């Protein structure tokens, strides 16, 4: 028996979850597309954004400051990590890159645990966004609605950076053929550093704006990382529109399956990923031959 009210509610849930996944995945996908490095510390960046934001919040009491501080801090961390560690790994095999980013992730998670403990930290939503809205078909937390808007805006900003700026042009060119970009005399290193920073910041930003929904703990990025990978694979590696589409698809699969039996939500998600890998190995909006 299909409960239509529940179905529409779950569809909507899927959009909200999907948008968040899209934002995190877009960070992962532009880093991989441009630098060729699969960043396994991406989940830790998400976590780090949450903690930096929470810290800023507990000193200032301002959600806006928390969001800015959280994102800026992760941007900085991203830039430093690229400059100090990742850069020495561009010429090395993928396995080394996986290991080093995996290691960076572990260090960051354990550092958070060391400084802040295992009890989760809560960042309340800004006072105007507390409460519940009646959407007609369901009651929905006001902040989650706002979150959808916030994430949509962030995705638009990312789109503008990628498609309407010189940096974005270089990044997109780099995704197609970074060797050629280098040969054209563009300082690829500087661009790489920025791309890594911005990609990390997308995760960090998501981490802090999601903190009022899922309180922050050292492991908060772990599950997100796995889902984000699935999104990137479904959407197509290196494709920003792919990340958005993949995110929404993943969100809907999880939500709609949950309506029937939540136990199968992830089974269906991975089944969808497998299907994409078989039928379109480079992802829905990916381009064949991209590394």
């Amino acid at each position, binding site marked *: 028996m299909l409960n239509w009210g529940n179905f529409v509610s779950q569809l909507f849930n899927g959009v909200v979850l999907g948008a968040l996944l899209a934002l995190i995945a877009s960070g992962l996908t532009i880093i991989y597309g441009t630098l060729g490095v699969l960043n396994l510390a991406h989940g830790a960046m998400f976590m780090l954004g949450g903690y930096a934001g929470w810290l800023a919040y507990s000193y200032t009491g301002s959600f806006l400051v928390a969001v800015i501080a959280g994102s800026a801090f992760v941007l900085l961390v991203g830039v430093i990590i690229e400059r100090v560690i990742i850069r020495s790994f561009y010429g090395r095999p993928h396995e080394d890159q996986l290991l080093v980013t995996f290691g960076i992730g572990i260090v960051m998670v354990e550092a958070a645990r060391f400084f802040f403990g295992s009890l989760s930290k809560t960042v309340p939503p800004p006072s105007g966004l507390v409460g519940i809205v009646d959407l007609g078909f369901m009651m929905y937390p006001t902040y*989650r609605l706002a979150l959808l808007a916030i994430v949509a805006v962030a995705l638009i900003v990312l789109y503008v950076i990628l498609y309407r700026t010189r940096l974005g042009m270089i990044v997109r060119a780099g995704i197609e053929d970074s060797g050629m970009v280098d040969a054209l005399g563009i300082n690829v290193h500087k661009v790489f550093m920025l791309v890594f920073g911005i990609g990390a910041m997308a995760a960090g930003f998501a981490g802090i704006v999601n903190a009022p929904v899922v309180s922050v703990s050292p492991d908060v990025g772990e599950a997100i990382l796995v889902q984000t990978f699935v999104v990137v694979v479904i959407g197509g590696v290196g494709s920003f529109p792919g990340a958005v589409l993949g995110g929404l698809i993943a969100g809907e699969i*999880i939500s709609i399956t949950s309506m029937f039996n939540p136990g199968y939500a992830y089974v269906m998600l991975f089944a969808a990923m497998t299907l994409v890998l078989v039928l379109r190995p480079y992802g829905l909006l990916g381009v064949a031959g991209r590394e």
Partner: protein
Amino acid sequence: MTIEFDRNGVSRRVLLRAGAGLAGTALAPGMIIPVFAEDKPAMGTWPAGSKGDTVTIGAAVPRTGAYAAQGEDELKGMELAVQHINEGHELIKKIAPKVSKGVLGKKVALVVADSGAKPNNAVQAQQRFINENKIVAMTGSTSSAVAVALNKFADREKILYLVAISGSNDTTGKDCARYSFRQCFYGETAANAIGPVLLKTFGKDKKAAFMTPDYTYGHTVTKSMSEYLAKHGGWKMVTNQISPLGTSDFSQYLTNIANSGAEFIVNVNWGRDAVLSVQQAKQFGLTPKMKMVIPYQIPFLAKETGAELTEGVFAATDFWWTLGDKYPLAKMFVEAFSKKYGYMPEWGANNAYMQFATWARMVSEAGSFYPPDVIKQYEKGETFASTVGDVHFRPEDHQLVRPVIIVRGKAPKDMKNKEDYWDVVEVVPGAPLMQKPDAFGCKLGSYT
């Protein structure tokens, strides 16, 4: 290393053969045979583990993942117990009178590994402790999946296992083990203790949504709870939302509950999953309109969600620090713990402390580290003092007979201090809450 191993191997085999005959006669009904140390075959880490001046206990607790906060708390209880055993603290002596600066003249040491609440990690860590530290006992678990795995491992390796937090009926039910002992309450006793309180407070024929983590703990607690409420009060389970351990976004589950017509949410989720589901149920406006019930209390729940969200919530638990008013040993424990760690202990810490103290009692009373001797000491079922009054073990399934504490969340304005989250509503005596020892299929394994 290799040579030593060979020598042990030979002597072990010889001893085993000699011991098999002895054990056979010793087990013959009605016969009492004096047992000397040299008659006992080497088994597990015995006697190597207790040859030196220190004996070691291996703990595999979750320090990462959804149960990390509870694992850390549990670990603190263990550390305090070890300290008390080694200094012959008066609290330990009330539980284990023969302890004096150690157990049987040996100091106790603790080695710790992170299990991440994953059975494989826990078993691997304990295997390493057996090989490297020759541990005489192992402990840890905040997940019944880990407890059940260590139960089987304990029987196989012949190492005592002091179950830490484990709420599944199976731990002393169908997956019980000769080498394992559980101190804390579990699904069946929780349901039988909190059920009457719920029916008395809210009446009959209600509709409840269940939130169940997808493993042995969740399924058995949900079963016990729903059966009690259905049988005695005609409550109906309108939906059962099963989520994997470690879920962070419960929006899908809560949406289903919102559309289920439930009046109550029986939330069996645990650890961080419980914190997040309680917070998000509030965000979605389900609570306080729907009443939240927590059949298996989570340490730090109120501290993490804030008292606003646990106000009026009924929960069944193992221990709450205000029991110090009722039980002198609880008072001593709470004082010692809060002095050392700067916060009031939660039930995981109390349970861990009591498990260690009880082990020290059994070993010192038995006068031996030889595992079958210690197990038989537990199985005498003698009454001893604990932080929740007099308790004893059931020899048939190795479950402690102990009260279950029913608490209700205080309103923030009623809290006398910042850790005064719960009111103790009732202390329900344990024996009548328990199923018959064989009702859940417990068959203990062999001693040797």
